[in-house]
């Protein structure tokens, strides 16, 4: 299984123009730990909504690559959004689930994926063009390339070690996060 910080760091290497929507909790801390960036739309709430926020952004900006990075609990709460994304078939959206099989912010209780619920299979059933599960850091670079590639909605289920790592806390003022993101997106 993957070290979460190492994986996210590799994912966002040479990120270029990538637009990143990390879900609340550990996913947001991991993305912040990889390096603060105005094109990170950090979430501190809206659990279940991460993939849909990314879809709205992807539909509005078909010229840009968008990645949603929810944890497994967040993705489970928004499981239906995989169907909604599948209907729209955006070419510029990838969902990378950081899946440690735990609800990390509430005491590390086991989630559905710990019992074998499979996001990749769900995504394919929802008409995602590609979906895969990865467990080794050697696979990270191929995933990084998918973020910048194309070809229809893609889901990567990244199996993460359920370690407790020190939180890295980015901005939590939602207005500031929004304004900063929009300004950076609109900059020449």
């Amino acid at each position, binding site marked *: 299984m993957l070290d979460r910080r190492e994986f996210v760091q590799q994912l966002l290497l040479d990120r270029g123009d990538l637009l990143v*929507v990390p879900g609340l909790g550990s996913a947001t801390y991991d993305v912040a730990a990889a390096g603060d960036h105005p094109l990170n*739309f950090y979430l*501190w*709430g*809206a*659990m*279940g*909504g*991460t*993939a*849909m*926020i*990314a*879809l*709205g*952004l*992807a*539909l*509005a*900006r078909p010229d*840009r690559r968008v990645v949603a990075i929810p944890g497994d609990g967040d993705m489970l709460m*928004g499981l*239906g*959004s995989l*169907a*909604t994304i599948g*209907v*729209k078939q955006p070419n510029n959206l990838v969902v990378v689930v950081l899946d440690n099989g735990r609800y990390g912010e509430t005491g590390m209780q086991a989630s559905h994926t710990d019992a074998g619920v499979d996001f990749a299979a769900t995504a394919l059933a929802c008409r995602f063009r590609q979906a895969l599960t990865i467990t080794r850091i050697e696979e990270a670079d191929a995933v990084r390339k998918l973020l910048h590639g194309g070809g229809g909605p893609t889901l990567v289920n990244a199996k993460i070690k359920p370690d407790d790592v020190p939180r890295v806390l980015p901005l939590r003022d*939602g*207005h500031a*996060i*929004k304004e900063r*993101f*929009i300004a950076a*997106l*609109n900059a020449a």
Partner: protein
Amino acid sequence: MHTPTELATSWPDAIYAHFRRVGIRQVAYVPDAGHSRLIALCQKDPQITDVVLTTEEEGVGLVAGAALGGQRAALLMQSSGVGNCVNMFSLLRNCGFPCIALVTMRGEFGEFNPWQLPMGAITEDVLRLCGFLTYRVESADEVDEIVGAGCDMAFNGNLAIAVLLSQRLIGPKQWTR
């Protein structure tokens, strides 16, 4: 001047005209009978991306994402759907995203299905508790002005605006053919 019969069937067109006027580019919905014509108009429009949702709360995330990407979005839902959105509405307040929601009311005038009553009765209060300004439309001749004002308020001030289209306006659901 429209005849009463024309108005009764053309009020969705008035909403659509405002969507075009303010440049709405994404319209999200769980389908409702009362929104059938407006949904069809949005689906036919190449300038509008219509997004069918599995649950209304998905639409709130979509609105936020669209705004990040510089596009305006609208939500169409039945009153029951408002209940499904409560926590996600906090995203609008926390970040200051604009939102225009058109809500067709059930559980009011002439409602056949008592299961619609609990949510129908609290819809407006729930929206207000979630930070929306709410406006009711009782008759077809009010739609144009109220929806026009609502759209303008939402996007001029990054506000959450809900226009409640009363069951009396849309007509109670007919349960027998």
